[in-house]
């Protein structure tokens, strides 16, 4: 699908999203398309500069592990992916913490805003309210 951010960094974003929400590993192509569609629709209204920064950050998260592990983020196992993201989350630099917060928020948006996720986690809010429970 088309989009502002994900088409150029799709594999890297999915690797990050799977570390953020482990259940995302079981999404099929249709579910990924739905998740990424939600993300792209949200990003569509944001300034182009923000979208460029997101793309750069996703690329940076993918490349920085080369310095420590000699491999890209996409090539790391789950435990090492988590360690990389924790380094961003707990960084003394606000810029890195903010960046990770933004990426994780997008990953969570894609996963948890889908009706299928509502059902999987037992969230049952209904416009009919109490009537729907009787």
């Amino acid at each position, binding site marked *: 699908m088309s989009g502002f951010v994900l088409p150029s960094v799709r594999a890297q974003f999915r690797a990050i999203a799977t*570390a*953020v*929400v*482990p*259940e995302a590993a079981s999404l099929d192509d249709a579910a990924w398309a739905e998740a990424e569609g*939600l993300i792209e*629709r*949200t990003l569509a*209204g*944001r300034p182009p500069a923000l979208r460029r920064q997101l793309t750069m950050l996703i690329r940076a998260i993918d490349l920085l592990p080369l310095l420590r592990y000699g491999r890209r983020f996409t090539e790391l196992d789950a435990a090492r992916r*988590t360690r990389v*993201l924790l380094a961003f*989350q*707990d960084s003394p630099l*606000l810029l890195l*913490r*903010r960046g990770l*917060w*933004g990426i*994780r*928020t997008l*990953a*969570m*948006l894609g*996963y*948890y*805003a889908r*009706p299928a*996720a*509502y059902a999987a*986690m*037992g*969230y*049952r*809010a*209904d*416009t*009919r*309210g*109490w*009537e*729907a*429970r009787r």
Partner: protein
Amino acid sequence: MIEREYDIVIIGSGAGGGTVAAELAPMCKQGVRILVLEQGPRVPPDEMTGREVEMAGALYADDGGFLTAEGTMSLAFARAYGGSTLVYTGTSLVAPERVIRHWAVRGLAHDDVVRRSAKYLAQNNVHPLPQEEINENNRLFVTGCEIAGYHAEQFPVNVRGCKGSSLCNLGCPNGAKMGTNAVQLPAAERGGVEVVTRAEVRTIEERAVTVRVREKAAGAKGAPSEWPAGEYRVRASIIVCSGGSMGTPVLLLRSGFARHLPALGAGFTCHPAHILVAEHPRPITNDVGHPKSYYLDRAVEEGFVLESCMYYPFTTAKNLTGFGAPHSALMRAFPRLQMILVLACDHAVPENRITVDAAGEPVVHYSFTPAVVESLVRATRASARIFFAAGALRVHAPSADPPLIEAADAARADDLIDARHFMTGRISISAAHLMGGAVMGGSPADSVADSFGRVHGVPWLRVADASLFPDSLEINPYVTIMALADRVAEAIRADAPALLGRRITEAA
């Protein structure tokens, strides 16, 4: 540029603008032409699906996630017919006497605020919900408070025919909330006031506004605008700014009023908030029933207020600290989650203010003072005590590292929750009670308007919204906004003959 002419233009249709419109509507019978311009769409209840991202995109600015300049807090404010009254939970409290006294605004007395608030409590059908409609998420808050030594109070709410969808913040799908979209705006329209939606006011000129009316996008929610899309210049003898703390200061700054109003943009406060969750051993009713029925007011003693609450999956996920397996485990426990919203009672400081960028778009600067951090930490400790007292197995506390505290460690919770773990950018902080930016006061040196919303030195320009608040209110703000807007409308009625250049009969 299409030219139009009215006598009174009201910018914004929320608690401020909707109130002014309804109060001035009787003047239409005397031939006074009144127009309300609302930036957002008119969305009827049957289009409220309860789907989180879809409704946030339709009803909120920036999907409810407008980021401060520092990128450390997200602000939620609506853009729709009814403004933020479309998406609040309807909790209806009157301003405390101590707050109005602390504001020390010349001419504003607490008994006047109380009297006017009472009018809107009645108009909006405010009452406590019957006990049989209170869900377990709320009842556990009361139980936890009692055991922990606190006294929870029930929120009066402004609903009529509430079915308990729990979806208040996404727009009530049953039209049960008595916001301005349901009460004041329809009354104003019946009285002859025109409301034009999808109409963004770009600038205020001398007795005129420039307006951009947008087409309804394909697939978008809500009705099309009442006017054809295009650029308009609307002349008016009286202009009322009611775009809220994000709308009004930004519009006035963009229009160059800062030159003689140096206080413009200052005094911004917002009740910074955390959403806290705790996991119980069994499922509880949390996603059905009114979400916010009780509160604990510790503003005087400890600088915070706790409110029972319930949020949607993505909002909840976003507000939990961390990611990965521990985060997912908590999310999978959703049917067993109890939630508390903690609000810090922040105070106006010079560095926290609203500005505009080169394009005239809003930029909000907000730094967390040590007092606010301490308030949030104390509030989190109190919430942990309440959660564990109510029987929670574990509590998620953003100001703890790791954030999950097990019941076995409940006795140590006060030590585990500490300001040293309050790391901005790592933890989620949000705010929806946006206040100040065009504050009321005595002179142009320290304020933008007087206590009746008259902008200093500009007799035809008024402010009627939360941007008038000179400091935080320490409670949910909409009733006080309506009370102040009622004063603004009264002053407009009194000043109308001079400003409109004709007689308005007493009946108006």
